[in-house]
């Protein structure tokens, strides 16, 4: 390992790519938590489902890959909303544990169903869509694949869009209101269930986007759900109800992971995000940008 030491620029690129992956996934955790106060531990599986949606749409629109991606995202938006309407809506007002465990159960169910439908074999939607994942040379001897670059760009766009939507959009403001004071929001005529469903839909859609781009970049198999779970410390480090925090948290977690894997031990890959999480919980449990009162509300 030590003889294969990578140039610093390549390390920086790796950190940027991993941070974008985590950030794009983590914003899903944040959206759902901020609006409906539920920690969605099925996010990794929902994200994987989104990637499998691409496998389905790829066979329909094999010549136009942007159309296939858009169709898969639309399906994911619908899936997220349906998950809320048919499952999570029943858990409103229950114990925190019950709601979290429902998402865990949903994740288990999805994992089984996905293997049954699409088998456990690795799939390459990029081949089905006939797009080449060319490697782009960067100054300093670093390389980045086309879809990894697209991933960084997408993350920037998604975060820009989400922040603008929550700040200025009419529905975004309603969503924030529903998250802050559900009772007052309902009295002002905001349809809480619609807001929660929208949050679940958007969260699943952004997760699916991450899953789709990872699948296009490096293939799709059962390990993707683990990536989804590893992104969740990033959301918590930044503060579970802060989008900007998720961005910074992802950067910290990704930097720690890439550097520790490279300089200490490749086996650490699975635990680094959780080590960062433990450190954060000891020092500042509510995260970098999280609201402190959240701790007593849960």
């Amino acid at each position, binding site marked *: 390992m030590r003889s294969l030491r990578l140039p610093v620029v390549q390390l920086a690129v790796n950190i940027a790519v991993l941070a974008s992956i985590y950030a794009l996934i983590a914003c899903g955790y944040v959206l759902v938590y901020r609006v409906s106060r539920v920690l969605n531990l099925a996010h990794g599986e929902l994200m994987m489902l989104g990637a499998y949606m691409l496998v389905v749409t790829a066979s329909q629109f094999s010549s136009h890959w942007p159309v296939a991606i858009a169709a898969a995202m639309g399906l994911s938006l619908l899936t997220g909303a349906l998950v809320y309407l048919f*499952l999570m809506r029943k858990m409103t007002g229950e114990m925190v544990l019950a709601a979290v465990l429902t998402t*865990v*159960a949903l994740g288990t*169910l999805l994992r089984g169903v996905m*293997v049954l439908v699409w088998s456990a074999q690795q799939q390459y939607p990029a081949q089905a869509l006939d797009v080449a994942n060319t490697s782009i040379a960067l100054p300093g001897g670093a390389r980045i694949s086309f879809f990894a670059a697209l991933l960084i760009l997408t993350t920037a766009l998604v975060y820009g869009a989400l922040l603008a939507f929550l700040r200025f959009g009419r529905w975004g403001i309603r969503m924030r209101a529903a998250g802050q004071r559900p009772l007052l929001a309902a009295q002002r005529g905001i349809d809480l269930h619609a807001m929660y469903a929208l949050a679940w839909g958007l969260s699943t859609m952004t997760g699916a986007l991450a899953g789709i781009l990872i699948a296009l970049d490096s293939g799709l198999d059962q390990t993707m759900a683990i990536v989804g779970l590893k992104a969740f410390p990033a959301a918590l480090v930044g503060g579970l109800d802060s989008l900007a925090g998720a961005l910074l948290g992802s950067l910290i977690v990704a930097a720690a992971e890439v550097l520790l894997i490279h300089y200490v031990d490749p086996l650490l890959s699975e635990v680094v995000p959780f080590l960062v999480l433990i450190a954060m919980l000891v020092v500042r449990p509510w995260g970098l940008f999280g609201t402190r009162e959240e701790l007593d509300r849960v």
Partner: protein
Amino acid sequence: MSRRLRASGHFRTGYAQDLRLVETRGERWSLAVFLIALLALPFFASPFLLDLACQVFLASIGALALMLLTGHAGQISLGHAGLLAAGAFTAGILFKEVNAPFWVTLPAAAGVGALLGVVFGLPSLRLRGLYLAVSTLALHFLVVYLGGEYETRRGFSTGVVIDAPTLGGWTISGGRTWYFILGAFAASTLLLCLNLLRSGTGRAWAAIGANETVAEALGIGVAAHKLLAFVISSALTALAGALFAYYRGFVSVEAFSLFLTIQYVAMIIIGGIGSLLGAVLGAVFVTLFPYGIEAVIGTLAGAQRYAGLLFAVNYAAFGVVMILFLVLEPLGLVGIWRRVQTYFLLWPFRHRPMAGSRR
């Protein structure tokens, strides 16, 4: 402990009577019949049934420990598989490195579990609910990583093989012997839990579980009792892990995935939060569930086609069952059992009278 409804004519007249575990003649008789059936079972059962029973006993120990922590003290833990792994690896490492006999490794595993209980429990002094669950989840990954690291460093990449334990030249092996040993452990755990819950400690846990602020105002040392709950629960869990290692004769991190944690949490949910009977019922249900699924699939046409996908069917069905219990029957199997009992006790009436007869 919540007292359930009884047939009329049974009154408690003293505190000692209130604490008694077995109260009526009917209960004494049914307990005796149940015990005799348990003791007689290994002499009639096939090896496969014995293996199932042993698995149920092991799962019961873990589920009872988790029930103490989550169901009674109200502390959420998603690190149960990590604790089981810690116990199993303590036994495995001590056996491999210093060839320690089981009467050293089992207490050592419990000791490691207690120590980890302090580590798992420390966040609980600051964190509540969700954040506590998350911190235990993070510790799970840490413990499993350390186990994997040991396997890789020492070259046991597929797992650590443990010889059957011996006691004075007598090797413990065979389903029947294990049945009695694991059964004894499970029964002792159940008795320990029952006694803990009717002592001052158990009442303190119940108070903390119900409302921490009120518990503190009542003069209960909240921090100490929370830690104690973690320590006892973790020690029992690690012991179960070590027993599992000896029973299987093999330790590997593969066995302690996140799914194992989910299974244990499912046991207390499906069984019914806040009831020791629920923990045991849940352990039985979750342990037998995959075998039930296998049997059902086997009867379907073209079963061979699904043989490779059995684990997937298992996952999916397990998720569905968990969701059904969470949404439709939050009180779990115990809730159903109590409802049936109440139905017969109240017959021919449908509801109990408004007041007065509850106790």
